[in-house]
């Protein structure tokens, strides 16, 4: 028998579909969802993220008593920008209608603080305090939208050790002339109002004025309170131990001496003094706060701070990111599934089937990355969207004060967590493609992302190395979960362990994206070059 060469070639009865990237996506998605273990893995990642967050909340407890036996019940106060703020001072004021200005001369700024952070339960509130002015104690001139806490303001003030500053609406700060003052070298301060625009000046002699800055306080009413103020932030002692950190804080005081007070414009006749943020006249802690006038000299003693709240290790307040403390655990699970999504194919030789079905290898990698990225994004999104309100509810139930953040920040933290999951998954997938082994790829991703995060955030390492780790390693991406804001004009421990990352949220995520892009590129080259 000889072979027939006249056979009619076979014609396929199957309609030939258009070849496209969407088909590869569809194929990879079907591949993912038909392995129950992988779907279960993503659900587990979700559960672990929420569960570790809940465990963290359940393991914490708070017992809190304020000075003089008052409870430290936290009433969130928000400023004009929606941030949580403190607003405490002694304000000596007169109403001012329309445009005007206020000018003073400061001849002295002194203070008292409790060196061990403790304050006596009753009696003299200054008992045990020693002389010393807090670096960010402030005294100067102010224009404020009424005496209600949290209202808009602009102020020019002398500080304990940061020279003259112009500040407004709690979060804004500009530096004026540096240096301290004394009777022999006083400082002149001036604040003018022209419509919504407030301009701050300082001067060494009352003749030559230097402009510090301007503030636009939109919606400032025609009649405001203008006058003198004095404030001094709480003195905080943070002690660290193996089991964590505890902090003691106590109120401090600042006393400033003003003269040459010159209030111009349509102002009221009488000075009124208010202790803003105090417990009222009945509060024993307010004893000694207020002002004295002798001729043209005004001595104003105040306590409290006019500043945004910056939560940290020392503060009991819970932030959005503290609800997401379990994200690292969920991320480990996502890493395992994402790696397996490709290494399982290498292990069984299934990669050959994949590449015969889709010979364009770059597209195969892209389709896999899109599928695992999208699935991980959804996992992170669901996990964060459950963890944030649930953990916060548990913390609230236990009496923890909650740090308030603008809604947009909460949304960014939740979406950012989802993005963190997605990009990490893509990185793990790409590394799995490069190494073709699960164990090595999973270990590498965990060591690169989760380990530096834990070392930095759990305060295993000192602040310096922690900052470098969270700047250079892919763990920088955890910055996307930071809801707290760092302010130069507020003294606090701004370390990763306090929740402060060296990079901005999106810059941190960009670092991870950079690593992922590099590994994806390497994976694409190797996948194309290697025999399958």
């Amino acid at each position, binding site marked *: *028998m*000889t*072979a*027939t*060469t*006249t*056979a*009619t*070639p*076979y*014609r*396929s*009865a*199957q309609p*030939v*579909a*258009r*070849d496209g990237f969407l*088909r*590869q996506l*569809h*194929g*990879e*998605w*079907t*591949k993912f969802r*038909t*392995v*129950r*273990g992988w779907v279960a893995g993503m659900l587990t990642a979700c559960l672990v993220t929420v569960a570790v967050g809940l465990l963290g909340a359940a393991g914490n407890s708070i017992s809190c008593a304020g000075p003089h036996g008052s409870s430290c019940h936290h009433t969130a106060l928000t400023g004009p920008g929606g941030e949580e703020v403190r607003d405490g001072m002694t304000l000596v004021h007169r109403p001012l209608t329309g445009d005007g200005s206020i000018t003073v001369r400061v001849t002295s700024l002194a203070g008292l603080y409790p060196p061990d952070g403790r304050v006596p339960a009753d009696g003299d509130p200054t008992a045990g305090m020693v002389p010393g002015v807090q670096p960010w104690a402030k005294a100067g001139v102010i224009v404020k939208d009424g005496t209600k806490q949290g209202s808009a303001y602009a102020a020019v003030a002398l500080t304990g050790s940061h020279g003259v500053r112009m500040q407004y609406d709690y979060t804004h700060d500009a530096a004026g002339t540096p240096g301290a003052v004394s009777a022999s070298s006083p400082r002149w301060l001036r604040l003018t109002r022209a419509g919504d625009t407030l301009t701050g000046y300082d001067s060494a002699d009352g003749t030559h004025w230097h402009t510090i800055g301007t503030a636009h306080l939109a919606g400032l009413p025609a009649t405001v309170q203008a006058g003198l103020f004095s404030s001094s932030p709480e003195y905080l002692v943070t002690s660290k131990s193996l089991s964590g950190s505890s902090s003691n804080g106590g109120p401090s005081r600042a006393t400033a001496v003003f003269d040459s007070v010159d209030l111009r414009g349509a102002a009221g006749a009488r000075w009124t003094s208010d202790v803003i943020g105090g417990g009222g006249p009945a509060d024993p802690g307010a004893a000694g706060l207020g002002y004295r006038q002798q001729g043209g000299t005004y001595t104003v003693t105040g306590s409290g701070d006019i500043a945004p709240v910056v939560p940290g290790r020392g503060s009991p307040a819970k932030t959005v990111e503290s609800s997401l403390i379990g994200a690292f655990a969920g991320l480990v699970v996502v890493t395992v599934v994402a790696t397996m999504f490709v290494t*399982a*194919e290498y292990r*069984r*030789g*299934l990669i*050959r*089937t994949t*590449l*015969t*079905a*889709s*010979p*364009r290898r770059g597209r195969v990698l892209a389709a896999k990355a899109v599928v695992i990225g999208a699935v991980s994004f959804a996992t992170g999104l669901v996990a964060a969207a459950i963890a944030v309100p649930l953990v916060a509810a548990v913390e609230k139930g236990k009496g923890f004060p909650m740090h308030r953040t603008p809604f947009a920040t909460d949304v960014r933290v939740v979406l950012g967590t989802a993005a963190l999951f997605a990009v990490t998954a893509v990185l793990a997938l790409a590394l799995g493609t490069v190494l073709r082994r699960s164990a090595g790829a999973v270990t590498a991703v965990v060591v690169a992302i989760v380990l530096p995060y834990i070392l930095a955030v759990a305060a295993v390492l000192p602040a310096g190395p922690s900052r470098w780790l969270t700047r250079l390693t892919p763990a920088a991406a955890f910055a996307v979960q930071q809801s707290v804001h760092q302010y130069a004009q507020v003294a606090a421990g701004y370390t990763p362990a306090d929740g402060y990352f060296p990079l901005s949220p999106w810059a941190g995520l960009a670092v991870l994206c950079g690593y992922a892009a590099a590994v994806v590129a390497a994976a694409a080259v190797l996948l194309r070059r290697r*025999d*399958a």
Partner: protein
Amino acid sequence: MEATIEVSDLRKRFGSTAALDGMTFTVTPGRITGFVGPNGAGKSTTMRVILGLDSADEGTALIGGLRYQALRNPLSHVGSLLDAGALQPSRSARGHLLWLAHSQGLSARRVDEVVEYAGLGTAARRKAGGFSLGMRQRLGIAAALLGDPPVLIMDEPFNGMDPEGIVWMRGLLRSLAAEGRAVLVSSHLMSELQDTAQHLVVVGRGRVIADTSVADLIAAASGDRVTLRTTARAQAMTVLARAGAVVAATGSETLTVSGIDSQRVASLLGRADVPFSEIGAHRATLEEAYMELTRDAVEFQSGGTR
């Protein structure tokens, strides 16, 4: 698209070993082409190069005139079964076929068709990890037929199949070829391809040793030998050897004679009064023909070391 596979002058080295050394052959539609050779002869490597999985150092492998990488929705052009064990154990057989189908724009209905065709039946819902090798081969066949391709490439499809499965596989391959498809089937055992392949490409050490029809191969190996059955073996051997023939005993009652034709054998034995019951031209088995061809090409003789 012309349903042919044209392999020309493929060369590929792994280190100092030449896996492919000028491999050249053509697979035409409408028949089963057996691709045989001992283990390590380069069969699998050639198939991987045809499928675009491995790259050759030199030479080309074209399907209907195109490189595999140039095919769009390749499973509609070429169906292949390389390694039946290449499965995600925790994915069901149906799930495996479904992702393949979706990657080609094929429907779930087509999956059900090939499940039926390959005789997987209800097992399709089970996890592929629990499948016997025979069941995996059936799943591999289903995957290869998913796109209803005019070209089929199968590496050792009989491996691990029970006798019933082998009969099924032979019938299936024959009917696929009869439909006008080009079918390339590799095996390291010629016996598996006996009665299945119509054309053979015999390879050894990375190159083609014989590219021939099965009939021609057997004829060439048979030569002009005569098979004789007799109860008086010793007597017959003496008579025939005296007449100048080369005689070999191939069994207790059978002899193979070469050098003289069957008529002369009959007359010599008749004259010498040697009884015999059967006499005829010798027909070599495919296995014999193959052994003869590949004797030099077997790289790993039994007991040999590399």
